[in-house]
């Protein structure tokens, strides 16, 4: 049994894009999503259950995001000119979220994003990041506590808006 890279792309490109949007920013997210699939087409895809293939895919994605961060440390990009007055309240919150995420340790940020934005389970995240499910749970919780502290104001605002409990994303 072989896995078709195109089918894999169709099934997962949206999740990968969402992960990259938060991990490296929307400007680079599209390019890195494409890069994952370039790598996938040049590498034998493991013949395994869907969850394992997904974990493998996010392992590849995480490595690309880490490479991107290393490159940016070596060659920092000029910050984009933005008019603070022209930003909407939503964009301000988004900026605060991205800054809070950037302040997390790399591994904590990745396990948190894989859970919260992508919707992977603890086992899949563990496979993608080389951790046990218990370690994943601890890191996700630690990341949440840090984000709760840094994003106290937007969280307080969000608490006034009606919410719906949403568990694991599929």
């Amino acid at each position: 049994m072989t896995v078709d890279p195109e089918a894999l792309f169709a099934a997962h490109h949206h999740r990968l894009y969402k992960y990259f949007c938060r991990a490296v920013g929307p400007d680079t997210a599209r390019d890195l999503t494409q890069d994952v699939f370039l790598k996938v087409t040049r590498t034998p895809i493991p013949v395994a259950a869907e969850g394992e293939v997904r974990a493998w895919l996010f392992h590849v994605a995480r490595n690309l995001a880490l490479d991107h961060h290393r490159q940016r440390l070596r060659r920092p990009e000029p910050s984009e000119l933005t008019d603070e007055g022209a930003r909407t309240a939503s964009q301000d919150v988004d900026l605060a979220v991205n800054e809070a995420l950037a302040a997390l340790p790399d591994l904590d940020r990745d396990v948190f994003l894989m859970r919260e934005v992508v919707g992977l389970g603890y086992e899949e995240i563990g496979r993608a990041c080389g951790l046990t499910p218990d370690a994943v749970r601890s890191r996700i919780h630690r990341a949440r506590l840090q984000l709760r502290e840094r994003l106290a104001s937007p969280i307080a605002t969000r608490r006034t808006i009606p919410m719906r409990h949403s568990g694991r994303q599929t």
Partner: protein
Amino acid sequence: MSDRHEVISAFLDDEPFDSNALAEALSEPAGRELLIDLLALRHLMRTEGKEAAAQPVRRPWRASLPALVAAAAVLLALVGGYLAGERRGELAMSAAPPATRVVQAPAAWKDVRSGRMP
């Protein structure tokens, strides 16, 4: 925050958890506050990105000024060049060009009336 609240994260994530530990964690006001905050954080993570993606940050007009000036200069040069060319063409057509060679009539030349040979 103590580790005993990790069970709240596991509950939120639909992962296996100890129900007694969850009951204990939620029996404290701090545990209940944490649960609500983490739900709000989840909503923040899942909605803000979408809104921001739909509304790219606008660049201020000042940032576009050099590009506008360059475009205006190119346009001005093109229009100026066109008009100068037009004017030169009009001048060239209104006056005959100066003669480059004058042909002298030979000494035996005679004017004759038209239709008659000498």
